[in-house]
């Protein structure tokens, strides 16, 4: 117990100050992303992550957000356990047929005002699964999407930059 604490204390704070993604952070920002929402969620954004048939590549990268290097919590962004608590749905995957209804219900369960951000190329338009008989193809086909963070998978830096851009903080 004390050894672990000692290691953590010796290492100090490892969070990186600036995040510079390689690619542009936000693909297409929908018209619904207005200043009102930015004002409301500017300092506090609670995210419910929905896996709509993803290969889990995006989830791995999203998991990186909570770690010491990217530390998404310092911006007031947190992942929560229920869409009822959420302001934002972060949806990954090409939306398989089986997950379409579940995604719709999750969207319905989220209290307004709310954001939907599609993460990864699959979420954008189905990615490599585009045209498959088993997918609906893109999150926007099921629920209204406000912003898309591209990448296959998007790196944590890209995700963080995308989230901040959606909130108008960058």
């Amino acid at each position: 117990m004390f050894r672990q604490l000692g290691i953590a204390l010796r290492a100090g704070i490892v969070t990186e100050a600036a995040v510079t993604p390689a690619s542009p952070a936000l693909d297409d920002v929908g018209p619904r992303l207005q200043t009102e929402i930015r004002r409301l969620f500017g300092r506090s954004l609670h995210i419910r992550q929905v896996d709509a048939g993803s290969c889990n590549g995006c989830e791995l990268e999203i998991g990186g957000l909570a770690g010491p290097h990217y530390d998404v919590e310092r911006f007031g962004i947190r992942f929560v356990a229920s869409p009822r608590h959420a302001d934002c749905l972060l949806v990954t995957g090409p939306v398989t047929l089986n997950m379409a209804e579940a995604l719709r219900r999750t969207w319905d369960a989220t209290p307004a005002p709310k954001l939907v951000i599609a993460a990864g190329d699959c979420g954008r338009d189905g990615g490599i699964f585009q045209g498959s008989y088993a997918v609906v193809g893109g999150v926007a086909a099921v629920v209204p999407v406000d912003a898309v963070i591209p990448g296959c998978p998007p790196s944590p830096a890209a995700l963080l930059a995308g989230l901040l851009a959606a909130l108008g903080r960058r």
Partner: protein
Amino acid sequence: MSALAYALTALGGLGAAGLGLAGWLGHAWSVELLWLVPLAGLALRMDPLAGFFLFLVGATSVPASIYAIGYMRGARRGLGAYAVFLLGMAVVPLAANVPTFLIAWELMALASYALVLHDREDAAAVRAAWIYAVMTHAGLACLLAGMLLMFAWTGSLVFADWRAASATLDAPARNVVFVLLALGFASKAGMIPLHVWLPAAHPAAPSHVSALMSGVMIKLGVMGLLRAGMEWLGVGPPWWGVALLLAGALSALAGVLYAAVEGDLKRLLAFSSIDNVGIILIAAGAGMVFHAAGLETLAVFALAAGLYHTVNHAAFKALLFLGAGAVARGAGTRDLEAMGGLIKRMPWTAAAFLVGALAIAALPPLNGFVSEWLTFQALLQNGLIPRPELNLVFVLALAGLALTGGLAVACFVRAFGIAFLALPRSEGATNAHEAGPAMRAGMGLLVIACVGLALLPTVLLPRLGAAAARLLGDPAPALRHDLLTIAVSGDFATLSMPVVAGALTLGLALLPLLLRLARAPRAVRWSETWGCGRLLQTARMEYTAIAFASPLRRIFDFLYRAEKRLEVEAHPESRFFVRRMAYRNAPRALAEEWLYAPLLIALRAGADRVRAIQSGSANLYLIYVLAALLVLLVLA
């Protein structure tokens, strides 16, 4: 016709309550009809304690009778027994001599036996009535033996003579009488392990009768214990009180633990009655120990706390039983697993039951909290007794009482939450209907009683103290209080229920205002329960009553000793294809298995032995009689 009769019993109850109140406040009188009953005649005597219990009988029978107008729906059966039952209960506290007492006590028992047997088609009810008859008469036998011994040793059948006369008795004699009387009264009160009849008999009776049996009848056992332990036998040794204290703590804990896992709503309430009698016995036992130690003020305080819980329990337990009866009528079941969602179909019953559940879980600002608070404070005063072993007993009782409080919350969250909230789990619950106006009126009266008893401890406590003080044969030592606040032992503890209730109400009233100021949206959007995106919300998704109790079952497994049995019937071709699965996990009733079963086996073996001398020939029996006579003559 039956409605009129029940209205009349309600009026009678009102009269009894008035008479009782007058007596409680000090209006003493006595009646003797020497020719009516053999041996000593019929004798009634009113003193404050008798007045208190008569008031309890009368006041509880009013809402119960009003409720019965709707509940019995014109059925005439049981009416006579009900009237006799009420009469018996009203006479028991007033009885001034042994014959009067025993007759009233037996009337009460027989009438309630008939009422338990109300549904003669139901095998469970018949068995319950049988257990009840056996236990109540075993108790009566103990009482009879104790009272006759007192008669033999003091030469009087009049209770009032016993206090003075008992001072001349030697210690073993008094101990024998106390044990006999205590066993008899404790079996009526439902103290563990003499409680076995209670969870069987209370649910079988019609609900207004269950309310009276649980709310009042078992309290008459408590009254008997108080009279026997402190009035009839004078000041006893400390172990009498200690025995009551420990038995009370055990009853309270075991009662609430069995209630917390019970699946039948009325049985659950019956087990919870054992719990509450335990709390009353804790207070009464503490009072007896204080009395034995010569601390009269504290004795009065502890007894007043016990009496407070007595009247509180009468109010909320009667309310809960009436609520359970309304549910049984409205949804057609007593099984928690078949209920659910009743709050939408039966809003009035649900609200009344919620008040009862909050009160019995001793939550502020309702009445159960007041008496539990008083009992805690009474136990905490034990430091004034300079005997470490007695102090330790008090500490154990304190721990038991504290644990009981927490478990009662768990128990009644389950009872109310599973029965009334979320979605209905059965056809009956889906089509449940609200109770009629008479039943609602009965429950409403008791809701008012619960609130009133919570807000007025400063009025009630001194009166209860006065009744208790008379029991000890002392002038009343004063409990300090002003209009709002009760104080115990100077600044040791203070309680102000009106302030607590006021503060909570103020908080509740201010919050919506605060939300308005914060410009929070007021419109609510309705949507399905969040279920991780699954398609249907049905009652099958809900937590069941058995699942809800599962953590407690694990924690207290040493008490439940549940019998776990899994039966799997597989397809003959492969054991991986299961046709039918049955899982059984029922708590065992330890008192029955460890105490009563061996007792019954021994009894049966003894009876087998005795059969050897029973030939059935009249001549032989004449010889037995002759032999017995000879032996007696020789002995004399």
